[in-house]
């Protein structure tokens, strides 16, 4: 599978995403500079986490004007797979590829920790290797992950099964206490109506290797692979 990882000024999980797809799962990875306007030969594109443009003004607000975004939109319009993780999710929101906005965490603090998310829809190209209702442990690391949208939009994405992950307890209960940042309805990840663009705040690339003592996030990448009829090529040992 050919994966493109977009590098914005200030992206800082770009290497991590490339490492997972390339070194851990054995796929071919291409780094895409934010000024590139041609995207060819790619099966899926990752918008990685980080602080594009320092997160100044609003998270993702400046990055969405990067030249690459037009090509990315065209890629998505043609059905290409796009996954935005953390800052990538924020950029997708600002760019209008996904509905809603991110507000500051209710604590106002940056929060880095493991959270549990419940797979609300396992019939997607990003989650079909999970069970419906499965609880995944995946870390978050953000200051602006408080998802918000208007009630009409919310009703729409819920009715359409576009809410993919919700913050929950280890047992899978979606409770206010399990909500780390104040997100509406405990939303941790959503998808577009066509099912080819996913945004999620938790970082699956940080939980995809046994050496990091957590492989839950790998299920998302494996789902993407098998959506293309691929499987991981080699499971690498530690570090390698």
């Amino acid at each position, binding site marked *: 599978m050919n994966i493109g990882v977009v590098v914005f000024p200030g992206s800082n999980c770009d290497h991590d995403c490339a490492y997972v797809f390339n070194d851990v799962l054995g796929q071919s990875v291409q780094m895409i500079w934010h000024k590139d306007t041609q995207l060819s030969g790619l099966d899926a594109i990752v918008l990685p986490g980080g602080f594009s443009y320092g997160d100044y*003004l*609003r998270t993702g*607000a*400046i990055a969405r*004007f990067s030249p690459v975004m037009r090509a990315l939109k065209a890629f998505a319009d043609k059905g290409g797979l796009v996954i935005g993780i953390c800052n990538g999710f924020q950029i997708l929101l*600002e760019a209008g590829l996904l509905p*809603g*906005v991110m*507000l*500051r*965490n*209710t*604590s*106002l603090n940056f929060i880095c920790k493991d959270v549990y998310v419940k797979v609300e829809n396992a019939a997607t190209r990003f989650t079909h290797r999970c069970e419906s209702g499965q609880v995944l442990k995946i870390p978050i690391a953000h200051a602006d992950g*408080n998802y*918000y*949208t*208007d009630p009409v939009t919310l009703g729409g994405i819920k009715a359409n099964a576009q809410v993919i992950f919700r913050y929950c307890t280890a047992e899978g209960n979606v409770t206010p206490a399990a909500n780390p940042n*104040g997100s509406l309805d405990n939303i941790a990840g959503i998808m577009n109506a066509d099912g080819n663009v996913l945004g999620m705040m938790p970082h699956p690339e940080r939980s995809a290797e046994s050496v990091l003592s957590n492989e839950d996030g790998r299920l998302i990448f494996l789902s993407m692979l098998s959506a293309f009829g691929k499987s991981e090529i080699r499971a690498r040992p530690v570090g390698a």
Partner: protein
Amino acid sequence: MKAIIHVTLKQGILDPQGKAIEHALDSLGFSNAANVRVGKYLEVELNETDRARADAQVKRMCEQLLANTVVEDYRYELT
């Protein structure tokens, strides 16, 4: 010409920052402070002498970049 721009959260949208400040004010003893709302304030110098053109430009800046109109309102003055 200089544009003075205010970007504020729309009425009804939860303002986590405002709430946190309200809480902090309260614990500092300012118990009569309420409904704190936090917005952004921007100053932009414009190399432009035509008022109408400047106006149109600032409006576009706000719409495109400075405010997220899904949740934010903006207003500006030119001086």
